[in-house]
């Protein structure tokens, strides 16, 4: 792997940029691996990276049915924060946020992590009580958080509609200054490059079509490029986790829904932070290129079509225009959807399954991008040791039978 630095940049500039190597290889799949990861999104690639980096397990393949990062990783609105309500979730997301803070250096790849702050608006008295409760819970867990008044919100975001007569009056907000955004593709590419340089095979255009078992133990996967043997298989397929689970005869408490986002034409800098509103199902930030990045809520029905209903984005844009009347004439450039894996308590499932050697990491729903490094970190540990890390022990599939759910709907459901 050639390291990126100002010197390699200068040297390659002088060489007419003909000396750059591919950031990762495209090997033929081997017949056998110690660990196979299914799904080449950010979470799968991070898992492979930390398997090699933290646990010395390098005979690993990441199998991706399309191209890496082409799922939700490359379709999300990239909001990163860790201000969840319950201890279990807060610790997991905070581990991830700490990893984000050093990620560009760690990977020698610029993931453009920008700690521009994340505001969660409160529009009713109850919203404000919930915000105060969550900020206090965060601070008790050592996570930064502040409660802002309307005047403070207006000072940070001068274009916001702070009129008391607005349809959604702003009574205040929570602010996590360490939150922000990152470049989604770069996260996939950076982890892919780091994993590849440690010996991991990244195999694109390779769809897993079956999970083979023998006496309750996993033996490998059937793929569009033949059978691949493995003692341990980690499935990180986001919206497709249910399809993979059914291959192994496992039922999951998950439903897959379309989640939509839009970007506008580029405009001059007007918004230097992230603004989210749970109540109106809208969230917005401005990319470095100038486009407004706007996210909606999920479509209610089960859907794998990577497209959602027009009425959903219509509702979101109506809310955004109420909050930011000045955006009413901005034109939208593109709109798309990803398929998100929604769990009953808005928390992920990360751990063992009834099949020995088969591990699942899914249920991140609408908010897993922020967890990419942390998810990879704990999942690599789980696969390497055969037992969960203390940070993901509570996020087992068994919690749905014991009833020990971690209800993060308030902090996670619509907000990302």
């Amino acid at each position, binding site marked *: 792997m050639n390291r990126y630095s100002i010197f390699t940049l200068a040297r390659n500039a002088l060489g007419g940029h003909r000396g750059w190597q591919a950031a990762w290889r495209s090997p033929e799949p081997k017949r056998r691996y110690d660990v196979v990861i299914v799904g080449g999104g950010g979470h799968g690639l991070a898992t492979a990276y930390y398997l090699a980096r933290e646990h010395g397990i390098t005979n690993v393949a990441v199998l991706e049915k399309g191209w890496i990062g082409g799922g939700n990783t490359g379709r999300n609105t990239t909001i990163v924060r860790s201000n969840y309500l319950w201890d279990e979730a807060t610790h997991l997301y905070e581990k991830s946020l700490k990893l984000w803070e050093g990620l560009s250096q760690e990977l020698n790849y610029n993931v453009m992590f920008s700690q521009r702050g994340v505001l969660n608006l409160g529009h009713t008295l109850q919203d404000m009580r919930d915000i105060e409760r969550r900020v206090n819970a965060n601070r008790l867990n050592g996570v930064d958080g502040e409660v802002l008044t309307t005047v403070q919100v207006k000072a940070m975001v001068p274009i916001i509609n702070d009129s008391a007569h607005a349809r959604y009056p702003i009574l205040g907000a929570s602010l996590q200054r360490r939150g922000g955004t990152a470049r989604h593709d770069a996260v996939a590419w950076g982890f892919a490059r780091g994993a590849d340089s440690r010996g991991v095979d990244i195999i694109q255009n390779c769809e897993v079509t079956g999970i083979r078992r023998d006496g309750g133990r996993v033996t490998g996967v059937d793929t569009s490029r033949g059978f691949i043997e493995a003692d341990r298989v980690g499935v990180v397929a986001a919206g*497709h986790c249910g399809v993979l689970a059914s291959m192994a005869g496992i039922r999951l408490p998950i439903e897959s829904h379309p989640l939509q986002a839009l970007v506008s034409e580029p405009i001059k800098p007007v918004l230097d932070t992230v603004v989210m509103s749970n109540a109106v199902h809208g969230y917005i930030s401005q990319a470095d290129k100038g486009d407004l990045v706007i996210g909606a809520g999920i479509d209610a*029905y089960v859907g794998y*079509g990577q497209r959602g209903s027009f009425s959903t984005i219509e509702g979101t844009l109506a809310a955004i225009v109420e909050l930011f009347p000045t955006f009413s004439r901005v034109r939208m450039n593109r709109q798309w959807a990803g398929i998100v894996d929604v769990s009953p308590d808005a928390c992920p499932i990360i751990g063992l399954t009834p099949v020995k050697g088969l591990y699942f990491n899914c249920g991140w729903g609408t908010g897993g991008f922020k967890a990419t490094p942390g998810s990879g970190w704990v999942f690599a540990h789980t696969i390497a040791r055969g037992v969960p890390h203390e940070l993901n022990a509570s996020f087992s599939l068994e919690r*749905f*039978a014991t009833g020990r759910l971690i209800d993060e709907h308030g902090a996670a459901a619509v907000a990302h």
Partner: protein
Amino acid sequence: MLMIACPWCGPREQTEFAYGGEAHIARPADPDAVDDAQWADYLFMRTNPKGCHREQWNHAFGCRRWFNVERDTLSYRITSVYKPGERPAEPAA
């Protein structure tokens, strides 16, 4: 946007309807007789198929009645609409 044919009112736009999740999930007749895993299966586990799905819809801004829809979750094409207690018109593809 889906166009859904309410069995009572005929074809209407999706915005008139509320989605009610997977259909034909029966509550265990004797909850005391099932174990935690079976109860969890009833409460939380879902088939979530990529393909033919039978689901409940409510005509919330119309006649306010519940009914079942058989829909392909990949193409979103509706293949059958039927009343509670009925079975879909054709066998699932």
